[in-house]
């Protein structure tokens, strides 16, 4: 066994056999922000055979406080995160095969990315994509590990198809309008804690030590010193459309997807949630007022101008993003504000 893995091999629950298994496994990491870079670095150092890293964004200065694979050079060059992550990971462990994709992950992409993968790590920043990951994971019988964090708070849950409840059992509907790292901030230790929970579970899955999985939903606030762990086994719902007895994988259907359209000639992109909603414009206005930018409000909409972009939020849920004509850039801006 190679010296570089010796301390991990000495750890009984991994051992030589576990190390060999790690080398044969393929993990797909969706998102290369804070959670994505943390997960990717640990799994690459652990000697996982193949990593696929997918992200639609590029590195910015405000990422450097917590997105551990990136440097000032990456931010200055506005390097796509997937590429900057791959470059760094190749230096960390050249024996790991890294596939990097600059990609906005849609249903179609997710179904393709899932092929031949042993585990999916959620390192995304929104629930639209998490519900797609959840359905694809159920459809192709692939474990996935949810992670989320904002402020000093984080949580994680491991979804094993056929065993645990899925995200749809736990939440039933896509939560909209939650706090995000861009609206209320996030500290790096909470990122690292979520990454630790995710990667510990990942290693157990990859060495096939199924009985050691945590099984509980875990959450913590590192500033308020709270730690909560609750058993959710009984939330597994046999009627769940994603993982129940007769699954229909609702989030893979067109109707359930967030719709986007480039408005030709207007240098704008429209984003429309799958269901009509009554957006709470008062709450949104409060959030936006804490941001750097100009907020305008009338009874029908809130408008937020920041740099080259202007976002207009309508009461029915639609958002127009002016100053962009690229859908993935528009989605990225949108999810930074509304989660």
């Amino acid at each position, binding site marked *: 066994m190679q010296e570089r893995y010796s301390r991990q091999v000495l750890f009984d629950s991994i051992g030589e056999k576990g190390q060999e298994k790690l080398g044969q496994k393929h993990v797909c990491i969706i998102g290369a922000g804070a*959670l994505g870079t943390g997960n990717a670095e640990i799994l690459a150092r652990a000697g996982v055979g193949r990593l696929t890293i997918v992200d639609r964004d590029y590195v910015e200065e405000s990422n450097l406080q917590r997105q551990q694979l990136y440097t000032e050079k990456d931010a200055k060059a506005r390097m796509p995160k997937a590429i900057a992550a791959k470059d760094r990971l190749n230096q960390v462990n050249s024996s790991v095969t890294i596939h990097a994709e600059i990609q906005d992950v849609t249903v179609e992409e997710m179904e393709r990315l899932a092929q031949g993968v042993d585990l999916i790590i959620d390192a*995304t920043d929104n629930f639209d994509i*998490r519900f797609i990951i959840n359905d694809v994971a159920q459809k192709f019988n692939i474990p996935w590990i949810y992670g*989320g964090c904002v402020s000093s708070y984080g949580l994680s849950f491991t979804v094993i198809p056929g065993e645990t409840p899925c995200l749809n059992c736990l*939440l*039933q*509907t896509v*939560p909209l309008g939650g*706090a995000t790292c861009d609206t209320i901030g996030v500290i790096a230790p909470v990122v690292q804690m979520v990454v630790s929970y995710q990667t510990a579970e990942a290693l157990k899955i990859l060495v096939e030590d199924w009985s050691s999985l945590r099984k509980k939903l875990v959450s913590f606030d590192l500033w308020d010193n*709270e730690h909560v762990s609750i058993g959710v086994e009984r939330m597994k719902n046999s009627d769940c459309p994603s993982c129940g007895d007769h699954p229909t994988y609702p989030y893979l259907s067109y109707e359930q997807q967030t719709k986007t359209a480039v408005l030709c000639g207007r240098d704008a992109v429209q984003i429309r949630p799958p269901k009509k909603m009554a957006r709470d414009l008062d709450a949104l206005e409060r959030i936006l007022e804490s941001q750097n930018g100009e907020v305008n409000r009338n009874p029908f909409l809130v408008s937020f101008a920041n740099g080259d972009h202007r976002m207009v939020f309508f009461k029915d849920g639609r958002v127009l993003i002016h100053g962009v004509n690229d859908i993935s850039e528009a989605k990225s801006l949108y999810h930074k504000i509304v989660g």
Partner: protein
Amino acid sequence: MIVHINGDQRELSSQLQTVFDLVNDYNLSEKNVIVELNGRIIEASKHRDTPIQEGDRVELVQFVGGG
């Protein structure tokens, strides 16, 4: 009324009578929170009908999107 929330002892105002009231008081929505009351998960649809009582142990887990 004294209850334990996420492991900490808290004094609740007497206006908070149900799980729904408590979730609201924490500025959470039943759409993105999982509530465990004395070791039992309380489904979102039952939050309004489930009273909070002296000495209860409540765990609140909020789902957040950031990452």
